Every structure is written in structure tokens, then in C-alpha cells.
């Protein structure tokens, strides 16, 4: 085992982070547990047992910390969460895109605000979480993010935004374990959370009603607007475009014979466009705000490279070319790149993460900028040598 460290463990009250803390303590590290209070759901004694963020969850984390005999604190990071996760989440939906709040939470809260407090307040060397992911450090000190041994649980999709300074001080004790092994470890340690069900959905919307949350937290005032079919025919009316996601089939109340899916959400015209299944296929995806774990693209600034891309959590990575979007080399952080997949991907949702892999290694990723419906425009845009920005759908 590596030299003993002093590690702050983000304990949600779920089985994964409970076992992460237990394993580190067992390995001889000095472990401090912390439960992050991130939003006002913490004031509820949750009827929604799936949320990781209720008062009950904090109690579970506290119980596990007591079982492990480690110090335990509740840390209020509501302000950091509101700025780094909640407000981008609401903004994305109100702009007609589909946010990835877990990505933001990892980069700005867990390995942002929490890591800062670990270093300065709790005097810890690192922050550990119950993520299923692996971290490798080469001889020259560079850290790489590697997919978890449990392929089904792998959470590198949500961690692509980590950079060297963050990954170096991140610890993922569950990376080499399968979920059944984690449950077994929890039982072996007699942890009260051993048989707790998986948390699901968005922690700050425990009832899953995104549209209600947009109204109450984002001040959204929904207005009815047209639902149009692929050829532009108006086929119905929606009660507010925000909250719809490409690929979504349910909830529109429209029957057109052949199955129809949301293919595009346009907030400027308040229009939802439908398409057949095949209309939602594309091989061209633009990504914004690209970040590389290594802090530089694999083929150098502006160089095209091969990678496998995932456009959603758990999707099979699809081989692709990744090229700069435009004539100039994009900046090492925050640039726009184009991904051209070898085979089509389906229902690409703007706002969601597109994450790049080289085999087992997560290279980085960005946020999807445009829908499949814009692929033609995008290709033309590219032909015109890098062109103006096409309106983000």
C-alpha cells in the first residue's frame, strides 16, 4: 500500500462512499468524513428515498463515520453548488439544452470547493469519493483517468472535466471493485448502508419533476408553443419547450402513426421539432468548452486525433475523428472541437457531455453544442473554413 495519507472522504450516506471511507481507513490512512450540504433538500426528511441529499442521508453518513470511528463534519457548500451547478443547470434548460449537473458538481464542487477545503481547512492531502473510476500516476507525476474495472458502473463520463491539479489529489478507492464486491465489503465492515438502494436522478430534484424545478428555482414562466413534425407541419402544441430533450418520446401527447421523437428544442422560437428515429442519427457532433485531463490535446495544439466518444453515460464508446472547429488551434481549455464518428450516434443532446477515450483512458471531453438536425449546417460551416458561430440550439 502507498504511504499513509490524510484523506477527506466525501460521504453521501450511500453505500459507495461509505465503503470508500472504510477501505481507506482499513488501509491505514487517516480518514476524515464530510457530508456536503449543497441545497435546501437537506432540510427535508425525505420521502424520496432515492435522493442522496436529504437529512436522512446525512444521518446515514454520520452513522457510518461513527462505525469507522473517524471524525465527521457537515460542510455547507450551498453557495458553491448554486453558482457552479444549480445555476448552469437551470440556464441550460432555459436555453433549450440538456445539462450535465454531475459533471459540474465533480469539477466545481467535489474536486473544486471541497478539494480547496480539504487542503486548507481539514489539512488533508487528498479528497476521496465513491466514484467508480481509476487514477494512474506515471513516473513523471502525470495523472491519468482510467475507466473503472466494473464497466457497467464506470463513472469517468462524469469526471472528464478533472485536470491535473484536481486528479493528482483525487482518490477513487472503488475503481478496482465491482458493485457486488463493494456491497460485500460494506457487509464485511457491518456498515449500516450496506443494503441501501442506489441513489438515482438529480439530487436537488428528489421528485424528478424538472419542469416544476425550473418554475420554482429558475423563475421559468412556461408559454405554449408549436410542436412541428420533421417537414415543418404543425402537429400540436406544447406547454413550454424547456425540459424537453432530443430522443424523448413520452409526454408530448401526439400520435402520428409512425413513432416520433423530439429532435430539436428551439427556445428562441419556442418550438419543438419531431423526427423519425432515423432523423436523429448523426455522425457529426460539435463540442464546446473542451477540457483535456492531460491539459493538452493528444496530437498537440490543433492536431486532429482518433478517439472513442461517448455522448451519454454508459453508452458504448464510438470510434471517431476529433478535429479543431475552425482554422486556428483551439485553446488548451475551453475550445470548440468537431467529432466525426465512424458510425452514427443517436439523439445527440446539446448541453450533455461528449467524453473522449483512448481505450481505457479518459482523455477529456466537452459539452455538445448542436443537435443532429444541425449537422448539415455544421458541415457547410466547416467547409467555409471554420466560419461563424452557428446559433447553439
Amino acid at each position: 500500500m502507498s504511504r499513509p495519507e490524510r484523506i477527506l472522504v466525501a460521504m453521501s450516506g450511500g453505500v459507495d462512499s461509505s465503503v470508500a471511507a472504510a477501505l481507506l481507513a482499513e488501509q491505514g490512512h487517516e480518514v476524515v468524513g464530510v457530508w456536503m450540504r449543497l441545497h435546501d433538500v437537506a432540510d427535508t426528511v425525505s420521502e424520496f428515498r432515492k435522493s442522496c441529499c436529504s437529512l436522512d442521508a446525512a444521518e446515514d453518513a454520520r452513522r457510518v463515520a461513527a462505525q469507522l470511528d473517524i471524525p465527521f463534519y457537515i460542510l455547507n457548500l450551498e453557495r458553491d453548488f448554486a453558482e457552479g451547478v444549480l445555476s448552469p443547470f437551470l440556464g441550460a434548460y432555459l436555453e433549450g439544452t440538456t445539462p450535465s449537473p454531475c459533471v459540474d458538481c465533480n469539477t466545481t464542487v467535489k474536486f473544486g470547493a471541497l478539494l480547496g477545503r480539504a487542503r486548507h481547512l481539514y489539512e488533508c492531502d487528498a479528497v476521496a469519493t465513491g466514484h467508480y473510476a481509476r487514477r494512474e500516476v506515471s513516473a513523471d507525476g502525470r495523472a491519468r483517468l482510467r475507466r473503472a474495472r466494473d464497466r457497467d458502473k464506470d463513472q469517468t463520463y462524469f469526471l472528464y472535466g478533472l485536470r491535473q491539479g484536481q486528479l493528482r489529489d483525487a482518490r477513487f478507492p472503488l475503481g478496482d471493485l465491482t458493485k457486488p464486491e463493494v456491497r460485500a465489503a460494506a457487509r464485511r465492515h457491518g456498515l449500516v448502508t450496506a443494503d441501501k438502494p442506489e441513489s438515482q436522478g438529480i439530487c436537488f430534484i428528489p421528485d424528478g419533476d424538472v419542469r416544476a424545478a425550473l418554475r420554482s428555482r429558475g423563475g421559468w414562466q412556461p408559454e405554449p408553443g408549436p410542436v412541428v413534425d420533421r417537414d415543418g407541419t404543425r402537429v400540436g402544441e406544447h406547454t413550454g419547450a424547456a425540459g424537453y430533450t432530443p430522443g424523448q418520446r413520452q409526454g408530448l401527447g401526439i400520435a402520428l402513426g409512425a413513432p416520433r421523437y423530439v429532435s430539436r428544442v428551439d427556445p428562441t422560437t419556442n418550438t419543438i421539432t419531431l423526427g423519425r428515429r432515423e432523423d436523429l442519427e448523426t455522425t457529426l457532433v460539435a463540442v464546446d468548452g473542451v477540457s483535456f485531463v492531460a491539459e493538452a490535446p493528444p496530437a498537440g495544439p490543433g492536431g486532429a486525433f482518433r478517439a472513442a466518444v461517448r455522448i451519454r453515460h454508459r453508452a458504448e464508446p464510438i470510434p471517431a475523428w476529433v478535429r479543431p472547429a475552425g482554422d486556428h488551434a483551439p485553446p488548451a481549455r475551453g475550445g470548440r472541437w468537431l467529432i466525426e464518428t465512424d458510425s452514427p450516434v443517436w439523439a445527440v443532446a446539446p448541453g450533455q457531455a461528449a467524453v473522449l477515450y483512448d481505450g481505457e483512458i479518459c482523455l477529456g471531453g466537452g459539452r455538445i453544442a448542436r443537435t443532429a438536425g444541425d449537422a448539415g449546417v455544421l458541415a457547410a460551416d466547416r467547409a467555409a473554413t471554420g466560419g461563424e458561430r452557428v446559433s447553439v440550439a
Partner: protein
Amino acid sequence: MLPFLGAEFGNPSSPHAWGRRARAALDEAHERIGAAIGAGPREIVITSGGTEALNLALKGAAWAGKARGHRILTTKVEHHAVLHSLQYLEKFGFEVVEIPVDRYGRVDPDDIEAALSERSILVVIGHANNEVGTVQPVAEVVRRVRAHAPKGCLVLVDAVASAPYLKVDVTGLGADLVAIAGHKLEGPKGAGALYVRAGTHILGQQQGGTQERYRRAGTEDVAAALGMAVALELAVAERDATARRLRKARDRLTAALVALDGVESTGHPKDRLPGLVSVIVRDVDGASIVVKLDLEGVAASVGSACTTGSAEPSHVLTAMGYPEDEARGALRFSLGRTTTDEEVDQVVELVPRVVKAACDAAAALAAERAAAAAAAETAARAAEPGSMVRS
């Protein structure tokens, strides 16, 4: 106390020998608690703690007084057991007036007098504040109420924080209702008592059996009641000596704290609980100092005990006029009967280092936050259309 957790398992309401022995112990608890505060045994209602005693007093007095009026006066710096109970009563049509306090957290009896009306039925005031330690002019408030409020307007004194250190004599205080708690006296948690002056009518808030003269139905916790009685007696016996000693220790620790940059003492400088040190550390979150002290083995607290991590600043400090950001730097040390001078020495030595470390941490975090925001800004600018203009 211990036999009543084991062999003496009888229910004090039972008609057999075990029940009689339990009942005798419970009677003894009433007598001893009453004697310690100058009350008779039948004037004591044993409860599950300070919060229940306050709830019973507030709701019991409010409902009993409803025919005469609906106005209840209190201060802005009371414990949540008082303020939240009153918010609950407001939903039923009671009118609650929260009197402001000065920068030390002290209420002006003139303000109480001015707020009294023909419809006033209850005045509630804390003997000493649990967060900043300020002692209220309770006797004067009682005099004003007696002189200017309609007959039948009751006075409830919350003596939970003060009972271990200040003389709590119900005759001297002149109050109709006085609440105390076992755990503050180093006695058992889950024990409290409400003094109800003989002849004062309050409505019981839980119904069932005839326990506590109909004022609190439910089988009594005999062990906790006796434990609290003993703890109260011990506190009273050593109270003056304890207070003298703690006052010195308190002033020593306060001096060590306020000598640091950006630290100021809160609450009244003299008229305060002997063992309570309360300060504000500027530009630092008090919770972060508490964490650092805990990691060093020192138990401190921000405002009041809170387990949900809420970032709400203390209502006591905001009522005293501190802006929210300053109130977040609240830090409180409670010294008690068993606190030794050596322990105080250790904390006096440790505190400057810990407060400085917390200040440095806060500054470093603020700098990192600014740097991260700047980096995100640069990245966002890079993604803007202007940086990719058609060549």
C-alpha cells in the same frame, strides 16, 4: 438515579410495591428540584427537557389565556424552542411581538412596557442568552408587567442557559413560569422541568393519564427526573464558587481571542454568563474554526447547536445588529463546572494558532475561488464566436 434504570423498574402510577417505590423517587425529584429553585413540589412539572418545558409553558399559557387576549411579547434573541413555538401559535391567531435588543443583546424594559396592551396574556424572556451569554433585566421586566399589564398576564422565564451559573429563585424572579433543563446542569439529557406558580392555570399539551397533575400525561422517566434533581443540587451547591472561577477563566480566554486581529467579543462585557465566551472572527466562517479546533481536540461551537449545516447566520447576532457576513464568523466556547484551569491554559495557547490558520485558509480559498473564476472566464471567452472569426 441508576437503580431506576435497573432493578427498580416500576411504573410510578402502578399500585404495587415497585410502583410505590418509583412513585416515591419521583416525588423526591419534585421536592428536590422545587427546593433548589425556591418552589414547592407541586409547582414542578417534569418534562423531557427544556424544549418541552418551554413548549408546554407557551402553548399551555396561550390557550389558557385565549379568552382574555391573544397578544404575546418576547424578544428577538430567544431560543428557537421559544421563537418557533410562537410562530406556530401565530398560525392560530395569536399575535406575537418580538421586542428588539441593543448591541449587547439586552432588551430595554421600557420597550416591553410600551408594547403591553389590554389584550396581553404572556411575556416570554430568557434569563440569559444561550449564544452570547447576555443576562436580561428579568426582575425589572416582571415589575413592569405587573404594573402595566392586565391582571392574568403571565411571565415565562427561560432559565435553561442560566440555571447552572446564576441564582434561579422563583420568588426573586417573580415569574409565573420558569423552564430549566437537565443536560445544561451536566445532568441527564431528556430531562427538564417547568415551574408553574401555584394557582397559575395552563392547559396540558398532551393528554392521556393524570400524571404531573394533568399537566403532562405519560409515564414519567423516574431515573432522568432524579438525575436532574441531583445535578441541579450539585450545581446550586457549587454555583458561586464555580461562577467566580469561570469568570476569571472566561475573561482570560476572551482576552486571548480579542487580542487577535479581526476578533471582537459579542454580548454584554460584564452582565453575562460566567462561563460563556462568544466572539466574532471577521472574514472567517465560524464553522471552519470549529472544525480546526475539533481536529485539535477542543470542543467549540458556532451560535447554537445545529446539525444540518444550514448557513443561516445566528438570529441572535443579526438582532444585535451584526451584518450577516460578520455573524457567520461567530464562535462560542462554553466553560463549565468541570472545566479546569489547565484546559483553559491549553486553549488560550492553541486558539491564536488555530484562528490564524482558519484566517489563512479562508484567504487561500478566496484566492483559489477568484483564480478558478478567472480561468473559467478565459475558457468561456475562448469559446466565444469572436475568437474564431472567418479569416
